[in-house]
């Protein structure tokens, strides 16, 4: 069943200052990122209904962007973990090309007043998009810098009016054994699920992501809708979300279920808490010079000023 969402007064993409857009594009081009010029032409409106690679309209959020050099589109789109398409880093880009990310619907239910199954377009329509260049730290101790396009998850969640019982948010990936060959294996429990405490979900850094490098998200990077929580290990960034549920108790999450001694619910980037089998003190920056890739890992992946207060008083060695 598809439900119509209550419409709300939001900034239409057309109202976004073209100059900002122009400047942000210039800045990116000056950075040698080699992007297409499609969005110069004022492409507007329903870009989010388009297939992977279609240009998006967005503004750049400099406040929430790091100054590290972003990785190339090629690195970001050919090297990642997405076990639904295989366990090798190159599997997603090889096996996700035929994945149908549109049409798409998202079910929202649980402890909230507005529930139902909505077309992706209705989910995305009210939200102006922003680009944020975030650090991405994988639990496997490598890292990248990625220019995501999305909007604050908080803005989306508020529309569904979570009740006082909503303490956590649980996310589900599509379960589709035909389209996602990895889901036929038992390497993880399917569908992939993730969760955040409500205050984490509502934090302005938490990004509901629909794009990469100014274009609609490639299938292998989690199209059409994925989560980015930059102060947590990458596996918290659940992909191809088709169900969001407000819940009262801490939800079970896929990796924590798979190996509870190795992966926790919080999964905050923390150089002081090692993975039982490898160190988390340092990370290797993909794309850096071959002989100089190791760099120290920062607490909360460098976002401590913004998020450390969420965890004050908590023993982060215990709640890893």
């Amino acid at each position, binding site marked *: 069943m598809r439900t119509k969402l209550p419409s709300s007064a939001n900034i239409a993409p057309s109202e976004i200052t073209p100059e900002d857009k122009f400047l942000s594009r210039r800045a990116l081009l000056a950075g040698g990122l080699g992007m297409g010029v499609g969005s110069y032409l004022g492409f507007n409106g329903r870009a989010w209904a388009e297939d992977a690679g279609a240009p998006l309209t967005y503004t750049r959020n400099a406040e929430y962007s790091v100054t590290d050099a972003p990785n190339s589109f090629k690195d970001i789109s*050919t090297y990642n973990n997405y076990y639904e398409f295989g366990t090798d880093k190159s599997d997603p880009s090889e096996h996700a090309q035929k994945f149908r990310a549109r049409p798409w619907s998202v079910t929202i239910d649980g402890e909230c007043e507005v529930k139902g199954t909505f077309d992706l377009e209705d989910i995305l329509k009210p939200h102006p998009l922003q680009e944020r260049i975030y650090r991405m730290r994988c639990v496997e101790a490598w890292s990248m810098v990625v220019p995501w396009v999305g909007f604050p998850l908080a803005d989306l969640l508020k529309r569904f009016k979570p009740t006082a019982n909503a303490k956590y948010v649980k996310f589900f990936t599509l379960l589709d054994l035909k389209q996602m060959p990895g889901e036929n294996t038992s390497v993880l429990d399917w569908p992939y699920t993730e969760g955040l405490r409500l205050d984490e979900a509502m934090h302005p850094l938490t990004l509901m992501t629909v794009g990469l490098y100014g274009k609609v998200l490639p299938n292998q990077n989690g199209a059409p809708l994925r989560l980015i929580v930059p102060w947590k290990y990458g596996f918290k960034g659940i992909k191809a979300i088709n169900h969001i549920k407000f819940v009262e108790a801490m939800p079970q999450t896929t990796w924590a279920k798979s190996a509870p001694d190795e992966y926790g619910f919080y999964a905050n980037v923390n150089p002081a808490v090692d993975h039982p*089998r*490898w160190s988390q003190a340092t990370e290797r920056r993909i794309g850096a010079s071959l002989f100089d890739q190791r760099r120290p890992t920062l607490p909360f992946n460098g976002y401590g000023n913004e998020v450390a207060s969420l965890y004050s008083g908590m023993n982060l060695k215990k709640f890893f």
Partner: protein
Amino acid sequence: MNATRFVVKPLLFIACLGPAIYLGVGAFGLWGVSLGADPVHTMLHSCGNWALKFLLITLCMTPLRDVTHQLLWLRLRRMLGLFAFFYAVLHLTVYIVLDQSGHLSAVWQDIVKRPYITIGMLALILLIPLAATSTAAMQRRLGRRWTRLHRLIYPIAVLGVWHYWWGVKKDIREPLLFAGVLAVLLGYRLYRRYQISAHAPRVTAQEKLS
């Protein structure tokens, strides 16, 4: 005899060098060869993987001799074993120089704190005396002790596969395959030992097993 020496062995040598050449070419991005977005991981994993494969291939030579009644296999064994050592050393070198960017204190911390690295390191250290005594002269000089020393290859192979298994994040299918092949190869030796002691008690198992 000469065909082995002048044709088979040189060809095998070049073939065994293939993976290292490929990784070297890819590391520098020559001729369009790419090692992907994370060349360090590709090199690290690939060298370790080939070290294990060469260990298992080396362990296939005695069964192949038994099955085919050809001594050729034993004449290739030393080169294959040395290539296992070669790729293990490359694996360690990539780990220290590229993966850890030469931070020796971090490497030492890993060796003492991470069991899967400890046993991998142990396997490599145990390979050193085997490589050092691989010459025909050493084999003659050590005589029966050589055979006994080189039986270290069995625990080394177990440690190597274990190292791989333990290091994998979640998908253990490949380490499982390696472990399966190793189990067959070691099981074969147990079977032979049993067979020999049951049917020909006067021939020592040690001689047959070498």
